[in-house]
């Protein structure tokens, strides 16, 4: 039952092959057994999940089944959940119980989804390996000595380990796509403003975007359908109609123009990853798409620009954690300054502190123009590269990450080595473009991802391309060997 996709579970529930209560109980048992091995969940919610499942079964019996009625999901622990601890992977929020639900949480609940728990993540979504979580790293189900990617590593690992068929996640520089690639699942970062961020704990507000993860593009479409749409409570959320994503999934790809950027196939790309991505491109050609060589000349500046913009915004956003209104407070503060200084020292981990200090530096008197303003100018150049490319092509395809999952501690000594794992994902955030990752092969017995970048609000076309690719290939159906061996 745990191998089924959301779409298959939906059919099974509709045919009364099984109930949501049975499905939920089965997955909760799996989580109970397997989570100690993967550490994918920070919090599980068996009691409320079973109550939600029972309610969903009743609604279905009464002939009132909304889109996700009785389907089990998990939320990244960055989304506020009313009455349920929301830690953001940080000691700072270890005791934080929000008084409200994020819009995404509200919408999925209204559509009938059953929430199994909150998934592990890099602290405040700052990381590409899940090693910065206060709750310990998530382990990659494909190789438990390796990282699952980050920051949404808990959601990705839970999907790969068949603990849950769908999950929410967030992406500031690759935090949906990179763990999706490293764990062999499908994840979409929508256009900036497509999905409400209200109640999603802020990291870098001009880059952050919420999105879905699942094991197939069809399931991602199902979740995005519910998550997307206008929300007056998020001032950056855009009021644009949400298309019917399922309606165009099957469209043939004949005549589709696919841009292949030279800069995404240069030095630093693992040869195995390159081979897998080129084979995927050939599959699109077989389906009638045209490959067009393009250039995104400012790609090399994306990581440097990001590490000015993201830390500056983080330093402002994380100023709210002051030990006064919520979150960690140090013991016995002697005065207000001491309360701030020690609460923040104790509450934040090393990577978060590093980024706050860098952001503070970039915004300090005398450096604002040299760093922040300059980075925002480069950001416009990067966006212009994409605008020029989308005048000629419909989609841009390339690798999601340069390498498959790396071992724990492999990038420990050097923050920049870790940052460069996001070299292909960051530009889409700077430009606000939608981008998704689908599994496209194995390298050293670990999954690698194909990245599909679309034009603004063109998620339907990206999902169509990803779905057609998944109809013709089987990479997304592969389960980690440990799972199939255990079942045999």
């Amino acid at each position, binding site marked *: 039952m745990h191998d089924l996709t959301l779409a298959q579970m939906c059919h099974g529930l509709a045919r009364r092959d099984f109930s949501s209560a049975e499905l939920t109980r089965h997955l909760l048992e799996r989580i109970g057994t397997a989570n100690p091995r993967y550490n994918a969940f920070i919090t599980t919610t068996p009691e409320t999940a079973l109550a939600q499942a029972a309610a969903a079964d009743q609604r279905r019996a009464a002939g009132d089944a909304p889109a996700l009625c009785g389907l089990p999901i998990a939320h990244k622990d960055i989304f506020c959940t009313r009455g349920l601890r929301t830690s953001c992977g940080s000691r700072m929020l270890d*005791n934080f*119980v*929000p*008084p409200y639900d994020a819009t995404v949480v509200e919408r999925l609940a209204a559509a009938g989804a059953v929430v199994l728990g909150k998934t592990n993540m890099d602290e405040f979504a700052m990381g590409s390996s899940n090693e910065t979580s206060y709750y310990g790293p998530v382990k990659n189900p494909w190789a438990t000595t390796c990282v699952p990617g980050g920051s949404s590593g808990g959601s990705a690992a839970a999907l790969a380990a068949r603990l849950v068929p769908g999950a929410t996640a967030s992406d500031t520089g690759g935090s949906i796509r990179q763990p999706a690639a490293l764990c062999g699942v499908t994840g979409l970062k929508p256009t*900036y*403003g497509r999905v409400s961020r209200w109640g999603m704990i802020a990291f870098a507000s*001009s880059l952050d975007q919420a999105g879905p993860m699942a094991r197939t593009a069809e399931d991602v479409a199902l979740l995005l359908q519910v998550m997307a749409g206008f929300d*007056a409570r998020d*001032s950056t959320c*855009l009021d644009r109609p949400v298309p019917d994503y399922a309606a165009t999934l099957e469209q043939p790809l004949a005549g589709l123009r696919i841009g292949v950027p030279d800069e995404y196939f240069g030095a630093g790309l693992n040869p195995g990853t390159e081979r897998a991505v080129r084979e995927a491109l050939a599959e699109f050609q077989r389906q009638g798409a045209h490959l067009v060589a393009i250039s995104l000349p*400012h790609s*090399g*500046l994306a*990581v*440097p*620009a990001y*590490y000015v913009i993201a830390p500056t915004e983080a*330093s402002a956003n994380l*100023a709210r954690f*002051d030990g*006064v*209104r*919520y*979150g960690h*407070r140090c013991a016995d503060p*002697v*005065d*207000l300054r*001491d*309360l701030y*200084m*020690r609460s*923040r*020292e104790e509450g*934040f981990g*090393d990577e978060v*502190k590093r980024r706050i*200090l*860098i952001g*503070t*530096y*970039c915004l*300090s008197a005398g450096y604002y123009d040299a*760093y922040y303003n*300059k*980075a*925002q*100018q*480069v*950001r*416009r*150049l990067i*966006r212009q590269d994409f605008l020029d490319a989308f005048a000629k092509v419909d989609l841009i395809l390339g690798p999601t990450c340069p390498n498959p999952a790396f071992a724990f501690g492999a990038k420990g000594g*050097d*923050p*920049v080595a870790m940052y460069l794992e996001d070299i292909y994902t960051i530009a889409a955030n*700077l430009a*606000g*473009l939608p981008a998704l990752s689908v599994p496209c092969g194995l390298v050293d017995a670990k999954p690698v991802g194909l990245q599909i970048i679309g034009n*603004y609000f063109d998620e339907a076309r990206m999902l169509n391309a990803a779905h057609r690719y998944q109809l013709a290939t089987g990479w997304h159906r592969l389960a980690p060997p440990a799972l199939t061996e255990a079942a045999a």
Partner: protein
Amino acid sequence: MSIQRADIEKLAELARIHVNEDTVTATTLGINRVLELIDQLRAADTTGIAPLANPLDATQRLREDLVSETIDRDALQAAAPAVEAGLYLVPKVVE
């Protein structure tokens, strides 16, 4: 551009994060690595390029200046470390 230990102390004060004596050397090294990375931006020719703050060039939506929602003070303050009579408690600020 690289920064020294004294700069870290100033940044720590601005950011209101105490930096421990044991970690100040590692913190300085890590930040200098990142500054080397972002210094690559200097090579970019950005003459006449306007900064881009919102990727969609969107501007803030306006609304009527009316009360749109009310908050439940008790529910919000339930997450606070120290509260009394609806107020947040902090160490004495004024003698």
